[in-house]
């Protein structure tokens, strides 16, 4: 059972589908064209959209494309209703991102089976989604443990995705940066408070322990397919291009680009925020330090410049 949105410009057709699906007890809403459907999807996302292709104004292909391009709604399965003999529509439907097709005239048994199976898949993706939000909550809990870094995760998510956009990265990469901002330090859940919150300098052993947070975080995220783009950020955001970073001592281009981006944002935010072991520095000081680190061979100068000119500028010196 789930919530199904039926979209058809002929009320009779919509009513017929509703009657065919009735025995399965779904919650059903109807819309008369693509535009109305998009409004309903935005207002309260359904678990499945069953949509005619030929409609006036916004047709089924256009509405399907809009649903699939919005990251908030793209996991909602869309089934397009076409004529059996219309291969052209099917090709256009696949290109618009449709998940399945049913033909008119309807075969009631087939329609019900397809709807049931797609709703089952939707339920699995919802569960994955909630697993991801558990990990994000965990990351925020860790941030809360360390009272001095409040808002660090939110800021990193914002800086990271902003720099990704400045660099012209694709939507998946920008989304990984946005989530990576929240998750980069999730592995600190495995670091004792005595080390994590220690006001003075760390001993060699304590440093080694602290470095483990990258590996622990990577392992925590490893179980979730949806986090596979985020894992390189979690594991490698403390690498340096000259190989002196951790945990793997990667060099140059071997350090994933998204991790390099996050590392710049992380360093900038850490320097400009008061920490248990160091006071907050002015933004200009942090900018100089990042440039020094790039000259030393730790970071790519072009990435540092892009961050300082296009991202940090608007945050540290607004207006």
């Amino acid at each position, binding site marked *: 059972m789930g919530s199904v949105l039926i979209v058809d410009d*002929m009320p*009779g*057709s919509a*009513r*017929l589908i509703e*009657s*065919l699906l009735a025995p399965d007890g779904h919650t059903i809403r109807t819309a008369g064209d693509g535009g109305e459907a998009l409004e309903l999807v935005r207002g309260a996302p359904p678990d499945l959209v069953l949509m005619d292709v*030929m409609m006036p104004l916004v047709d089924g292909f256009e509405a399907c494309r809009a649903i699939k391009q919005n990251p908030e709604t793209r996991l909602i399965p869309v089934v397009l209703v076409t*004529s059996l*003999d*219309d291969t052209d529509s099917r090709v256009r439907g696949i290109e618009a991102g449709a998940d399945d097709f049913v033909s*008119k*005239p*309807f075969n*009631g048994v087939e329609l019900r089976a397809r709807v049931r199976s797609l709703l089952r898949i939707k339920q699995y993706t919802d569960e994955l989604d909630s697993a991801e939000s558990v990990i994000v909550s965990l990351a925020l809990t860790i941030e809360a443990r360390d009272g001095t870094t409040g808002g660090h995760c939110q800021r990193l998510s914002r800086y990271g995705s902003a720099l990704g956009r400045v660099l012209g990265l694709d939507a998946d990469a920008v989304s990984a940066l946005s989530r990576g901002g929240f998750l980069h330090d999730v592995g600190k859940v495995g670091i004792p408070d005595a080390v994590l919150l220690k006001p003075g300098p760390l001993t060699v052993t304590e440093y080694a322990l602290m470095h483990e947070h990258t590996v622990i975080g990577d392992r925590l995220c490893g179980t979730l397919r949806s986090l596979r783009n985020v894992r390189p950020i979690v594991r490698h955001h403390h690498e340096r291009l000259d190989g002196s970073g951790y945990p793997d001592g990667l060099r140059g281009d071997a350090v994933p680009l998204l991790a390099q981006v996050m590392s710049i944002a992380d360093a900038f935010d850490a320097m400009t925020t008061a920490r248990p072991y160091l006071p907050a520095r002015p933004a200009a000081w942090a900018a100089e330090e990042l440039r020094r680190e790039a000259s030393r061979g730790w970071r790519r100068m072009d990435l540092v410049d892009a961050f300082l000119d296009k991202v940090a500028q608007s945050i540290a010196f607004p207006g």
Partner: protein
Amino acid sequence: MTAVMTDERARHDLKNQLAIIRGFAELLLADATESQQRRRDLEEIHKAAVSALALLDRLYPVAGTEPGEHAR
């Protein structure tokens, strides 16, 4: 202004209307509580809708195909 419908649009709409008649007839026929007399009446509605759909396919085959030709 008189709206002029394309053949393709008219074919599509007519087919949909007939499919609605056929679909509801099938739904009612699946209901076991209908009397014999009512079932025969419903079967007439269903038969007429099926014939009309077949007729429509013969009159206006989808551009570029022949009736009964499903693949090339």
